[in-house]
């Protein structure tokens, strides 16, 4: 049986299950897989977090360096998010320059962090127009068992939340100090399976999915970012319902990251 045919059979099966409110791994439509966040995993980074969402594993490292502010934002530091979908993490990825999927992942995570004003960038300015902190958020996917976006975003938030500004090493202050994190956006991703919209999709569910919707909420009750992905469509009502679910899950995941 060809791979294409067997994938089609699995898709049909997954959608049939969803219609009955069930999923391949026994979860309910709105259940998340177990989530763990291990901050400080990488000593060479200024902040880091290893995140598991079920079997999906993502490592994020934050590095801060002294750089120069952009000419149009002389009073602000620089935040750069980069996600690598390394070939180690999935048989579907190849070595080489970042593909559209990796670029979208980087940008969607970056957008939630940036739009929520997670880091007050003006606090990363050292000398206006001359010297500022550049904060690199590097996301390294290790095992892609579905829902990379949420795992990557949690890893980024976790790494930032527990990061240290290496002010002493760079001769900018006498002591290193914790990076100031102002807001805690969390992204939640859903895929359509037939007429059901399931939370935290596995790799197989993403493959079978007919549209993906990611909603980032903050701790103040705002939606700060959204992204529809993959082939498929959502009605405005479905979007509104999904946003409600994202608020609910977001609050819980925020607590996991903050360790409370």
């Amino acid at each position: 049986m060809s791979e294409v045919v067997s994938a089609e059979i699995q898709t049909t099966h997954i959608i049939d299950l969803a219609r009955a409110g069930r999923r391949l791994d026994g979860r309910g439509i709105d259940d998340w897989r177990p989530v763990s966040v291990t901050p400080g995993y990488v000593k060479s980074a200024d902040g880091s977090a290893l995140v598991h969402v079920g079997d999906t594993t993502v490592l994020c490292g934050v590095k801060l360096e002294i750089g120069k502010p952009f000419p149009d934002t002389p009073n602000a530091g620089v935040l750069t998010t980069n996600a690598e979908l390394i070939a180690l993490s999935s048989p579907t990825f190849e070595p080489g320059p970042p593909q559209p999927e990796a670029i979208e992942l980087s940008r969607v995570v970056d957008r939630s962090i940036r739009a929520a004003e997670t880091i007050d960038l003006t606090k990363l300015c050292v000398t206006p127009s001359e010297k500022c902190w550049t904060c690199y958020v590097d996301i390294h996917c290790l095992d892609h068992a579905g829902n990379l976006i949420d795992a990557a975003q949690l890893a980024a938030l976790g790494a930032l939340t527990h990061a240290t500004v290496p002010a002493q090493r760079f001769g900018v202050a006498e002591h290193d100090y914790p990076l100031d994190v102002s807001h805690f956006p969390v992204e939640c991703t859903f895929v359509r399976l037939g007429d059901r919209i399931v939370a935290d999709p596995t790799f197989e569910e993403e493959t079978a999915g007919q549209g993906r919707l990611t909603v980032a909420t903050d701790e103040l009750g705002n939606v700060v970012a959204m992204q529809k992905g993959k082939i498929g469509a959502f009605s405005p009502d479905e979007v509104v319902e999904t946003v409600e679910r994202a608020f609910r899950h977001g609050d819980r995941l925020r607590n996991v990251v903050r360790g409370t």
Partner: protein
Amino acid sequence: MGNVGAKEIPQLLSADGRRIDGRRLDELRSITMKVGPLTRADGSAFVEWGENKVMAAVYGPREVHPRHLMQTSKAIIQCRYNMAAFSVDERKRPGQDRRSQEISKVITEAFESVVFTEEFPKTSIDVYIEVLQANAGTRCAGLVAASLALADAGIPMADLVSAVAVGKVAGRIALDLKKEEDNFGEADLPMALVPQSGRLVLIQMEGHMNRDELRQALDLGTKGCREIYERMREALRAKYDTPGRAEPAGVPA
């Protein structure tokens, strides 16, 4: 959004609810559309929307290049959104940056949701969108132009896709932001609608909206998309009403 350290924020909304260019909150900028301006492409369209100028062309169904992308059971769609170096205030280096690549991806997925790709297995439908002059909302203008170009090329689709951006300006939900509103507003939500199904095939959002604002934005955007849709149908009719010229396939009459 995202204008850390910017010096001066213009007043975006007047006391009587008028916007910086005099529009009401639910009012679109002026739009003109032209179907088929290019001779070499299989289908093409030009859209002037506010101060945006966008050209789109469609080639295909044709041979897939590079070949390893070929799918045996359907056509692939390859959209490429690109900004001309001179289309923005500060010259943009030629070539695809990460923003262009992301937009190309979400537009591709929007069209894959409506084109009957299974009718043309092993082929590629190539959609090129060139932004010649940019003033906020270029991905929506590009999507509308590409939609018309697909229709002009006779590509069968479930429906024409329409698009518009909604935003939040001085605390109010507003339709079809222009540059200053986009730069200094509080949120931007571009969306693309399949009018007959009422479903969205492109949704992006950045900024701050609470639950109510989001609901309001989706409603206003849906209304805006329907207005754009009527204009798109008019533009197609304008081209194909010439007697003796056949109606393009795949577009609902």
